[in-house]
C-alpha cells in the first residue's frame, strides 16, 4: 500500500500555490484568446513554393495595413497561419489573395478562412463562460444529491482546481483559447468528477464498513483500493489523447493538449484535493450513517 496520506499537507500546499499562481497569471497575464473570442480573421495557407517563409510572408502582409498581423508556420514549413484583428473591409480576403499572387506568383492555396465579427465573438465568449458555469453548477447539484456535503465540497474544490490550473498553464504557455478549448475544459470537468466520484464511492463504502479507522487512513485505503483502476483509466485515456495530439492534425493540438493537462490534474486532484477535504472536515462514520438514517 502506498502511503498517499503522508504527503497530504505538502501536496495541499502545492495545489494552493498552483491555484494562486494560476489566478495571478489569469489576472495579470490573461489568456491568449483566439479569433473565436476576440474577433478577427484567420487564414491557413499552403504554399507550393518552399522558398517562401514566415518573414517574407509577414513583410508582404505588413504592407497591406491589416493592423497587428501574426504569421507563423502551422504544422510544417509550407503551411502558414495568418491572424489579424477585426477589419471592416469586406473584401479583405480577396485583396490578400491578389496581393500574394502579385508578390509570390500563384503559389498559395487558401486552406481555411475564418472570420469572426465583434458581436459574434462576444456572444461566443459569453456562451462559453455560461457553458462552463452551468457545467460546474450541474456537477455541484449532482454530487450534492449523491453524496454528503463534505464530499460535494471536496469534489467541487477539485474541479475548480483542475479548471483553474489548466487555464493557468494555458496562460503561462500563451496557448490559444478557442472554442475547442471550452469543449476540452468541459470534458475535463466531467473527467475530474468521474475520477473523484469513483474514489468517493469507495470512501463511503469503507466508512460504513470500518468504524475504527480514522478518515486519514481510510482515505488512503480507499485510494489504494481504487488505484489500479485510476491508473489504468488515466493511461488509456492519455493514450487516446496522445494519439490525437501527435496524429490528429494541427487543428486538434490545442484541444488534446488541454485534455492531457486536464486528465493529469484531474487524476492528481481526486487523490490529493478531494480526499484531503474529507480529512480536514473530519468526516467519520457518523457522517454517512446520519445521511442514511435521514433517507
Amino acid at each position, binding site marked *: 500500500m502506498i502511503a498517499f496520506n503522508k504527503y497530504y499537507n505538502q501536496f495541499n500546499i502545492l495545489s494552493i500555490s498552483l491555484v494562486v499562481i494560476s489566478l495571478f497569471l489569469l489576472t495579470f497575464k490573461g489568456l491568449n484568446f483566439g479569433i473565436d473570442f476576440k474577433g478577427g480573421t484567420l487564414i491557413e495557407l499552403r504554399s507550393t513554393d518552399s522558398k517562401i517563409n514566415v518573414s517574407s510572408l509577414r513583410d508582404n502582409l505588413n504592407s497591406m495595413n491589416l493592423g497587428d498581423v501574426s504569421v507563423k508556420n502551422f504544422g510544417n514549413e509550407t503551411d502558414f497561419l495568418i491572424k489579424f484583428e477585426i477589419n471592416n473591409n*469586406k*473584401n479583405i*480576403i*480577396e485583396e490578400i489573395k491578389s496581393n500574394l499572387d502579385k508578390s509570390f506568383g500563384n503559389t498559395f*492555396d*487558401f*486552406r*481555411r*478562412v*475564418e*472570420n*469572426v*465579427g465583434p*458581436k*459574434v465573438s462576444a456572444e*461566443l465568449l459569453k456562451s*462559453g463562460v*455560461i*457553458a462552463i458555469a*452551468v*457545467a460546474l453548477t450541474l*456537477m455541484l447539484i*449532482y454530487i450534492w444529491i*449523491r453524496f454528503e456535503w463534505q464530499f460535494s465540497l471536496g469534489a467541487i474544490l477539485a474541479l475548480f482546481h483542475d479548471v483553474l490550473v489548466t487555464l493557468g498553464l494555458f496562460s503561462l504557455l500563451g496557448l490559444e483559447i478557442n*472554442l*475547442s478549448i*471550452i*469543449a476540452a475544459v*468541459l*470534458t475535463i470537468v*466531467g*473527467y475530474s*468528477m*468521474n475520477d473523484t*466520484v*469513483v474514489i468517493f*464511492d*469507495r470512501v463511503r463504502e469503507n466508512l460504513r464498513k470500518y468504524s475504527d479507522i480514522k478518515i486519514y487512513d481510510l482515505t488512503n485505503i480507499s485510494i489504494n*483500493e481504487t488505484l*489500479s*483502476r485510476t491508473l*489504468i*483509466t488515466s*493511461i*488509456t*485515456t*492519455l*493514450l*487516446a*489523447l*496522445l*494519439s*490525437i495530439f501527435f*496524429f*490528429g*492534425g494541427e*487543428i*486538434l493540438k490545442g*484541444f*488534446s493538449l488541454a485534455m492531457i493537462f486536464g486528465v493529469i490534474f484531474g487524476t492528481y486532484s481526486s487523490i490529493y484535493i478531494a480526499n484531503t477535504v474529507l480529512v480536514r472536515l473530519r468526516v467519520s462514520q457518523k457522517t454517512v450513517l446520519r445521511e442514511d438514517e435521514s433517507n
Partner: protein
Amino acid sequence: MLYFSKFRIISVILISLFFILIASSNLFKFENNLLNKKINLGLDLQGGSYLLLEIDNNPVIEQKIQNFSITIRNYFKDKNIRIKNLKILGQKLSFSVDENFKQTILDTFNDEESELNPYYPRFKSHQLDITEENNIFFVNYSTQGIVKLKTSSQDQALEIVRRRIDEIGTNEPNILKRGNDRILVELPGLDDPMRIKSLLGKTANLTFRFVTNNDQDSFGAEKLSYEDESEEDALVSKRIILSGDNLLDAQPRMDSETNETVVTFTLDRVGAKRFGKATSTGIGKQLAIVLDGKIISAPVIRDTIASGSGQISGGFTFQSATDLALLLRSGALPAPLNIIEERTVGPDLGQDSINAGMIALAIGFVLVIVFIFVKYKIFGLITNITLILNLFLLIGILTIFEATLTLPGIAGIILTVGMAVDANVLIFERIKEELKNEKNNLIAFDSGYTKSRTAILDANITTLLAAIILFFMGSGPIKGFSLTLGIGIFTTLFSVYFIARLLTVLYVYRNKEKEGLI
C-alpha cells in the same frame, strides 16, 4: 445474476450484427434503403463554407417610419385633423396637432381596432408606441412591432437568400433562421465562397429613375455616383418609375451590335405599362438605372419602349452581367445583410483532417487494445472485443441518425475509446478484490458486477452531463464532439453490461473451478 437466457444471448448477437452492418454501410453501397444511410461529414471534414448573416433592419425601420409619415398625414386629413410640424427623426416621428384634437390622436393610436396602428392581441401590444411631451407627439415602433418587423424581414430575406444560392446551384445548401435577425448558411463542398459572399452582400435594389437637373423636383432628388465611377455624379429624381419588383426575368446577353455584354430584362404588365408611358413622355431625357444607390448607367431615351422588355448596359464582363441578372431574377433583399461570421474550409484540408483523424483513431485504438490485453490477458481480450463492438455501435447509431461527423467529433470517438474501458476496468478490479475473500468464482464475479455498478453509473453520468451542456451551448464542430461523446456513453454502457458481461459469463462458467481467474 450471472445468467443470460438464450433469448438475451441471441438478442445481443443480433443487435451487434445489426450495428456492424449499419456501420459498414458507410464503406459499401447497399441497394436497400434502410441500409443506404451514411454519416454526414461536417463542413470541416468535407470542406465548405459556414456563413452567419445578420440582417440590418435599421434602414427598413427608417423606411417604414418615412412611409408612415405619409400615411398618418393622409389618414387624419380625411378626418379633418391637420398634422403639423411632422418630422422624421431617424426611427422616430414627431408631430403636433391643435389642442382640441390631442385626445382623438391618442384614442386613434390606442384603439384596438385601429387601422392606423395594428393591435396584436396575442402580445397585448400595438405596432407603434405614441408618447407626448410638451405638446409634441412622438411615434416609434413598439418592442413587439420591431419583433414583427424583424421576423417578416427575416422570412423575406431567407427566401431571397435561398433563391440566390439555388441559382448558383451548390449541392445541398443548408439555410436556417437564427434568432429573429440572422440567417445561417452552410454550403458544403464549395471551393470558392467569394462569389456567394459578394452575391449575398448585395441588396439588389433596382430602380429606374429620371436624371434631373433641378433640385426642385417635386419628389426630391439626390446626388448619386456611378458604379464604375466613369462619369461625374448625377442628380437623380427620387420618383421611382420602375423597380426590381416589376421584373419577370433577367438574362445576360451579348449585344450583337455593340459587342457588349448586357443584361436583358422582361417586365410584368404593370411594369411594361409604366415603362411605356415613361419612355414616351421622356424622350430625350436620361433614365438612370440605379442599383443599391449607385448608377449603373443612364441611357438617353430615344424611343418609346412598349414591348415591356429592355436591356441594361454598363460595361459588364460576362461574369458581372451573369451575377446582376441572377440578383435581379431572385429579387431584392428587404434589408442589407452583413456577414458576421465566416468559416470556410478547403476540400483538401478537409480530406487531410479526415486522414489525420482516422490515423489518430487507429493508433489510439491499437495502443489502448494492446495495453488492455497486456494488463488483463483473457479479460483484456473480452474488453477489446467489447471495445470494437462499442465502436461499431457508436458509428452505427451515428449512421442511423445520419448525424454529422466533425473533426472534434472524431476526437470524441477516440476519447470514448480511451474512457470506455473504464467501466470494464472498474468491474474487473472489483472482481479481483472480491476474489481475495471469495473462493467461488461465480459469486465473486456476480458481486463484482453488482458492487461496481454505482461507481460506473456515477462516472458516466458526470461525463454525460458535460456532453449535454456542450451539445446545447456549443456550435458546429463542437456540437459534433458532444454528440459522439454523449452517444459513446450509452454505447459503452450497453456494450459493457450486455456484450462484455455475456462474454465474461460464458468464460467464467467454463472455468468455474479455475483459480486466479483474473
